[in-house]
């Protein structure tokens, strides 16, 4: 009987408290949103299930938890804390990305840069709210709307915040259809939303597509060497794709490799949200600042597009500025849908993808810049 009582005391039912129950409910909510509502299922499903697993209470010292040395979860989590998974995800992203729309419309790249202003605004806000500089930089990068970049920078600067920052970044990416459209509509007039973009500017040759990853990696990584772990694999993946001589490698990078990394990244990030380390006042601050960062990023892209229109003969649709955040392809899709709602014949998708692709590069440069600032 005594043995049975001891056993009961070691079960999750006995050890659980309200915090764990709350986090398990969050995990179930993520799984629900992924499966029933199809909100970013590739991200929310592994994260949601990871949250459930990570919040099952256990007897400390068994080597079970993600923060306990020698546990299986701890080894899997190494890919997050070392920045390995984000680099692998970027390799696959590069092998999947078609830069032709961006190469055809280089001026739209500026919107990708403008949308990064949300990062720097949030950096200042986080510092003002009392976050330490490294923590503030990690929170700020949520404004880049790029999950792997946020995780990478946080792993380097404030590893204790990976859980809340990753969850915030991915949550806001999933909430793009709710966050972005009101901001787009608020900052643009109907007349501006009706601006039609020309179909295509010019055809892109294979040589251009081949040259771009080489020029891109040299230019960006010379500018911000700390972004090599992200942009190096990104442009390498793209070069493999465009070279057309290593189709097998490009296909593997854009399917099996990125899928494997996404599974472990999502699952372990979810599991890292153990209630006792996740449910803190700081996490609430991170969530609030994350939404500010994401909203400011969207707004700065739209406002910059309007400023560009003052100087441009051929006006650009300012909605495209919202696609400058690097949430690929969610924000591009949202811009397209908002444009279609105003004018069912206005197809903005390919133009928005150009901004989106430059947003990916921009947020990785920002991560590199912030990392190098904080290492000084």
């Amino acid at each position: 009987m005594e043995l049975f009582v001891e056993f009961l005391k070691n079960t999750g039912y006995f050890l659980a408290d309200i915090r764990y129950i709350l986090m398990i409910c969050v995990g179930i909510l993520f799984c629900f949103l992924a499966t029933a509502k199809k909100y970013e299922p590739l991200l929310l499903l592994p994260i949601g299930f990871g949250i459930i697993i990570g919040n099952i209470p256990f007897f400390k010292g068994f080597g079970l938890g993600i923060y306990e040395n020698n546990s299986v979860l701890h080894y899997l989590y190494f890919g997050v804390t070392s920045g390995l998974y984000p680099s692998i995800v970027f390799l696959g992203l590069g092998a999947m990305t078609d830069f032709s729309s961006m190469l055809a419309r280089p001026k739209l790249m500026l919107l990708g840069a403008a949308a990064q202003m949300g990062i720097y605004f949030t950096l200042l806000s986080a510092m003002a709210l009392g976050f330490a500089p490294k923590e503030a930089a990690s929170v700020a990068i949520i404004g880049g709307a790029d999950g792997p970049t946020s995780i990478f920078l946080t792993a380097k600067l404030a590893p204790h915040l990976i859980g809340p920052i990753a969850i915030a970044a991915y949550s806001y990416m999933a909430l793009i259809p709710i966050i972005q459209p009101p901001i787009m509509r608020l900052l643009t007039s109907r007349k501006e939303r009706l601006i039609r973009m020309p179909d295509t500017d010019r055809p892109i040759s294979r040589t251009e597509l081949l040259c771009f990853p080489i020029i891109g990696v040299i230019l960006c990584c010379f500018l911000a060497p700390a972004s090599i772990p992200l942009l190096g694999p990104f442009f390498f993946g793209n070069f493999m794709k465009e070279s057309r001589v290593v189709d097998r490698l490009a296909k593997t990078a854009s399917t099996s490799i990125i899928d494997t990394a996404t599974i472990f990244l999502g699952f372990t990030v979810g599991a890292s949200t153990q209630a006792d380390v996740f449910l803190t006042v700081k996490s609430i601050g991170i969530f609030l600042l994350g939404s500010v960062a994401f909203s400011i990023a969207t707004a700065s892209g739209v406002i910059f597009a309007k400023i560009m229109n003052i100087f441009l003969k051929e006006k650009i649709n300012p909605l495209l500025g919202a696609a400058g955040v690097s949430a690929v392809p969610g924000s591009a899709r949202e811009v397209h849908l908002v444009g279609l709602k105003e004018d069912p014949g206005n197809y903005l998708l390919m133009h928005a993808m150009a901004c989106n692709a430059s947003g990916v590069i921009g947020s990785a440069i920002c991560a590199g810049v912030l990392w190098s600032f904080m290492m000084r």
Partner: protein
Amino acid sequence: MLGLEAISANNGWAMAITGAIIVMCGLSVLAFIISQLHKIIGLFEKRKEAVPHFVRPAADFDTLNDLEAAARIYKPLTVNLGDSFHLTELYRIFEKEKLPHPHLTIRALRAAEYLQPLGEGVFRWKNEDQQ
């Protein structure tokens, strides 16, 4: 420490402004380069197009009985050698390309003055308007 004081104490203003300028400049330069890239590539491709290509003659082509055609076909082989060249260099290219009867062909082209001597073993092709 909170508020503006915290930002100043942590060098936040400088970091934010410098960071924003760096990313803006970086992507602007990249945008400028890729906007000019097709022009640079176009220049190279035009140059490539201007260079005549060697087209291998058909297997049944009788070099020795149609020297005019042979001279026209083989002329692109020496494009990389410049306007004048040594016959030994032409012979080496014939061998490399595995063309039939290199020795006989060169001798016949020389005898018919499709290859014109410039002295000291250096030759050039007869001008097309002369042909």
